[in-house]
């Protein structure tokens, strides 16, 4: 490595890293898409207190929240094929990317299910009753009344997850995926300008996060357009807490019948 930082290398590597942005975003998008579906499925047994499934989803969530992502990647990469052998499915030719996406999807699924669970709890029960009172079925009330509001409430948490997920994809290179970080490690083998390469890499991650944050914030504002646009929007956590307080106050106010 040279005596000082050579900015021209930073530029060069930045440009040469750009083609790998695609694979990184692919992992993020696929894992969040699948993770959302998994999260929804896993949240349901706990929301509706289905005996055995509720327990299972708890175990799943605490496992994926309680172990490092890198270990989860290895466990799924080496463990899943063994598991699948039991049902005589041969996955030795399956691309590594599939395992990586599976690991990230299961990982974010655990966090998404928690976010959904909390958000559904934050939607005030009275609106569900109002839905029943106008003749909705339980499913209609959930889909038309609870879910849209829960998604809006969960949006800030989900936004954090997207950013975390983007940064976490840097671990995928450990299984040999040539995403951004993997690429950044191979680029300077000739020049030995590793620092410049990592600098370019950090810059790229930062720009990607920044764009995603802006976009997510807009989406959040749009989903919450029915709530007054006051200070609570800039710190969504406070808004949620206030809303929950409000809901609790409402519960206390109603007569004996409302509490079950």
């Amino acid at each position, binding site marked *: 490595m040279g005596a000082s930082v050579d900015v021209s290398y930073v530029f060069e590597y930045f440009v040469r890293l750009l083609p790998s942005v695609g694979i990184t975003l692919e992992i993020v998008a696929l894992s969040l898409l699948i993770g959302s579906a998994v999260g929804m499925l896993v949240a349901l047994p706990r929301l509706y207190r289905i005996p055995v499934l509720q327990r299972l989803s708890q175990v799943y969530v605490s496992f994926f929240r309680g172990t490092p992502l890198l270990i989860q990647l290895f466990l799924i990469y080496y463990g899943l094929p063994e598991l699948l052998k039991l049902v005589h499915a041969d996955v030795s030719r399956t691309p590594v990317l599939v395992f990586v996406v599976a690991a990230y999807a299961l990982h974010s699924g655990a966090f998404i299910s928690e976010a959904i669970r909390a958000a559904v709890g934050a939607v005030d029960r009275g609106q569900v009753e109002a839905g029943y009172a*106008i*003749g909705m079925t339980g499913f209609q009330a959930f889909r*038309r009344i609870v879910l849209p*509001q829960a998604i809006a409430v969960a949006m800030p948490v989900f936004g954090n997850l997207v950013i975390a997920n983007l940064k976490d994809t840097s671990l995928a290179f450990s299984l040999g995926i040539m995403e951004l970080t993997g690429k950044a490690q191979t680029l300077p083998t000739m020049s030995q300008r590793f620092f410049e390469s990592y600098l370019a890499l950090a810059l790229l991650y930062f720009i990607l996060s920044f764009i995603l944050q802006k976009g997510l914030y807009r989406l959040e504002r749009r989903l919450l357009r029915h709530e007054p646009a006051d200070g609570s929007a800039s710190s969504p956590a406070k808004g949620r807490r206030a809303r929950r307080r409000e809901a609790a106050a409402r519960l206390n106010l*109603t007569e004996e*019948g409302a509490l079950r």
Partner: protein
Amino acid sequence: MIALKQIRKSFGKQEVLKGIDLAVEKGEVVAILGPSGSGKTTLLRCINYLERPGSGHIRIGDAAVDCGHPSKKDIHRLRGRSAMVFQQYHLFRHKTALQNVMEGLVVVQNVPKEEARRRSAELLEKVGLGAKLDAYPSQLSGGQQQRVGIARALALNPDVILFDEPTSALDPELVGEVLSVIRKIAREGITMIIVTHEMAFAQEVASRIVFMDDGAVIEEGEPAEFFRSPREERTKQFLKRMTPEGVYNI
């Protein structure tokens, strides 16, 4: 048209409804009065099964539920015959005033969107909110929200509208606007059951008063008769407490 027979309901060991019988004819406006904790709100919520009675029979029009063996389908039909106005309004917060009123028409009654929109706008006009069609609940005052709630109930064209203390959560200066809307629709001959603490309003708008205490109906009667010469001792005590002398004479 509405018949409740021997409705019983317990929360844990406490029996809050001790076998209520109530019949309401088409076009009647029944006001249910009583001290807090007397079970009047619970009774109202039992009528559309937001609260599950332990036993008894409920009938609204041609929809009947045997509370000992309720089926999902029967409950659904019962709710289709009734509408409710809540103390805390319970508007759908992510929908505009117009969408709140349309929701039941479109989703439950399968009315085409355009027609639902037209009818809903008319109803909001009727409750004095023609200028607030696109406002979200968070942008409306309590009185305005409750009027949207009333329009939402009216839209379904139900056999009966159940009012659960519709003005109890309102600031005093907003009570009037809501009461005048209820008065207006009462005159149109819509069947209503109102749980309220507004004595003067009940006397004026109701065709019959039902007085409840401790989970039972104590006394029923015409408003004038009920307020002038109550028969039961508990009714007398209650009315005495609710009159201004009783309130201010500390």
